């Protein structure tokens, strides 16, 4: 383990020191040391790791490591550059795939309730992409709607997010179409942007981020009495980062179409293509729909909250057999409308960060971007034009871009 090499730099406006716009230089060794320190204090570190060096789904292009977010006990295993996006999302850190809400024990006619999952260890996510980090404040709005969700809140409060700004993206990335970008700060405590020396400039965005860099530089962490979880976006530091993927779809036009008519040709088309496997929802950083079910073992058991998917027939099937969303077309409509109409109406925000995981995980080459494009073509204002300037875009009729090389900025 190398001693962390951090160095305070002065902001453009001359401010320095421990304010939230502090920037610190950090290299890989420094970051690994931060993770090691976190582990040494009993915390959990999660970041991109690769089991085998397998290519991303584009078989002919330059190889990018295929990574997934997983807990590490050896921070040296963290993959901190070269990848586009993890195959999973970081959502399990706040919404695990399965969670024991509480237990029960039956004895005779009585029932005793017992505690659910213990609170999580303080968790350091290193290597989130901006589209992963932005999902946390988006999820906050649902999970804090009219009152807290204690399990979610405990995990959220235990989480510190270190984000790696993107220098590479593939044809499925569409963050810039949904108001984010390769160096968007939303949801991050620390944002790392590559510098010329092969390390990163670390932008401190929250008190949590400040404590991390203070720990790395060997200085005492600033005494912060309270540590509210940020849920509002901090303006991007546009000068620091590359431009990101081109705007790939006119989301406003697609949304206009969804609002103009519940019925759209795009639903039937997407419904024909969709196999209903739910992979899009499971790899999505913002999909949060869940099931509550009992897991019984004799006289005791657990009531668990599990991931569910709006793409499953069972999601809405009534016990009577009636199903208000009887086919994949209506389920695709539900998913897209939830993200771009229903959630925005409730929370004035989008339920999508443009990460592209829905497409990458889809066995049928379908994703939010493809459906949005098909909707935008049918928009009342006419087809969107002048926006698809990427060379690797799919046709605008909802068919998909064929696997192309990961687009790497020179």
């Amino acid at each position, binding site marked *: 383990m190398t001693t962390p090499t951090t160095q305070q730099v002065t902001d453009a406006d001359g401010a320095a020191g421990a304010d939230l716009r502090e920037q610190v230089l950090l290299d890989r060794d420094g970051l690994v040391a931060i993770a090691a320190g976190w582990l040494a204090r009993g915390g959990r570190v999660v970041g991109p790791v690769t089991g085998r060096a397998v290519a991303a789904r584009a078989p002919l292009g330059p190889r990018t490591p295929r990574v997934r977010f997983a807990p590490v006990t050896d921070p040296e295993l963290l993959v901190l550059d070269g990848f586009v996006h993890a195959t999973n999302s970081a959502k399990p850190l706040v919404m695990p795939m399965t969670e024991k809400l509480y237990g029960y024990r039956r004895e005779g006619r009585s*029932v005793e309730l017992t505690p659910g999952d213990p609170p999580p260890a303080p968790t350091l996510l290193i290597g989130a992409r901006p589209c992963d980090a932005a999902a946390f404040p988006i999820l906050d709005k649902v999970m804090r709607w*009219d009152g807290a969700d204690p399990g979610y809140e405990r995990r959220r409060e235990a989480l510190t997010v270190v984000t790696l700004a993107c220098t590479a993206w593939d044809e499925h990335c569409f963050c810039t179409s949904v108001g984010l970008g390769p160096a968007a700060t939303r949801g991050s405590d620390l944002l790392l942007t590559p510098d010329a020396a092969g390390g990163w400039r670390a932008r401190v965005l929250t008190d949590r981020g400040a404590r991390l860099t203070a720990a790395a530089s060997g200085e005492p962490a600033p005494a912060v009495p309270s540590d509210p979880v940020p849920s509002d976006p901090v303006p991007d530091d546009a000068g620091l980062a590359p431009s990101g993927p081109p705007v790939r779809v006119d989301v406003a036009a697609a949304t206009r179409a969804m609002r103009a008519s519940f019925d759209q040709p795009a639903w039937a088309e997407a419904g024909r293509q969709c196999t209903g496997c739910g992979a899009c929802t499971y790899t999505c950083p913002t999909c949060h729909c869940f099931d509550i079910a009992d897991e019984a073992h004799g006289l005791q058991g657990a009531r668990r909250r599990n991931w569910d998917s709006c793409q499953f027939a069972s999601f809405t099937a009534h016990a009577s057999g009636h199903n208000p969303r009887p086919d994949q077309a209506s389920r695709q409509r539900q998913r897209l409308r939830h993200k771009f109409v229903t959630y925005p*109406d409730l929370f004035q925000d989008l339920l999508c960060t443009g990460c592209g995981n829905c497409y990458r995980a889809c066995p049928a080459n379908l994703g939010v971007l493809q459906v949005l494009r098909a909707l935008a073509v049918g928009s009342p204002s006419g087809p969107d034009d002048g926006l698809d300037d990427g060379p690797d875009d799919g046709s605008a009729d909802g068919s998909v871009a064929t696997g192309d090389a990961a687009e790497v900025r020179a």
Partner: protein
Amino acid sequence: MNGDPAAEGTLAPSDPYLPELMEVVSVTQQTSDVKSVRARFLDPDRQRDFRFRVGQFGIWSRFGAGESVFNLCGSSTWHDRLEFCFRRVGKVTDAFWGVQPGEVIGFRGPYGNSYPVQEWEGRDLVFVAGGIAMPPVRCAIWYCLEHRERFGEITVVYGARSVADLVFADELDQWAAHPRTRVVKTVDPGGRTPDWDGLEGFVPTVLAEAGVGGADTSALVVGPPVMIKYSLPVLMEAGLAPNRIHSSLENRMKCGIGRCGRCNVGGTYLCKQGPVYSFEEIMAMPADM
């Protein structure tokens, strides 16, 4: 670093998913596959202080099987118990079928909005129910009968496939014994028994012949889609505006608090903004139900 990874979880009373424990007081078999249950909170203070509004629902636990959504089918004026009614149709209701007095079950709620009982004051009321949809109407009927002086003429039109499919059949005569209250009961053609003293005919037909209506009338209509489809024009022809006709909708629900994502129809969450809607609202909903 805050938090202790070794710490035990806790049972937070504020946890919206944590049910309160109730004891089953009695179980009544209503039909071959419908039962109603009376239950009270284990905590007597909670039972005394618990309040809800007619039209709201609870999420009921049978530990080991899971949770189900049932309307609170008793009147909100009954403070010694809560009641729910279910048809044996799935995993949880199958487990509830065997529930015995004295057993402990779970309850979360009350959830959702409620019937516009204040808007109903001074107006004639028509309650229309079909089959297993009587429980969510029953709570409103009892509420109105217990505040009889606040309402005008009350007409209950209740139909089921056959005599054996009527739920709360023993209460129909009790309702009819109240002043200015009429109960019209019917079974589908072919559904009568030799001793049946009600009508024979479909609910919309019977409703049309019941002579209800007028601009001072409000209605609550809950039942199978086909019953609603043909009853609605009858009521509108009788002078009821769509915003004077309400219904209680149902969808699969898990959380009851607008998070699990399955009960919404278009932009409305049945568990939070519903389950009670006027037909003015229902007719504006997308065809996703």
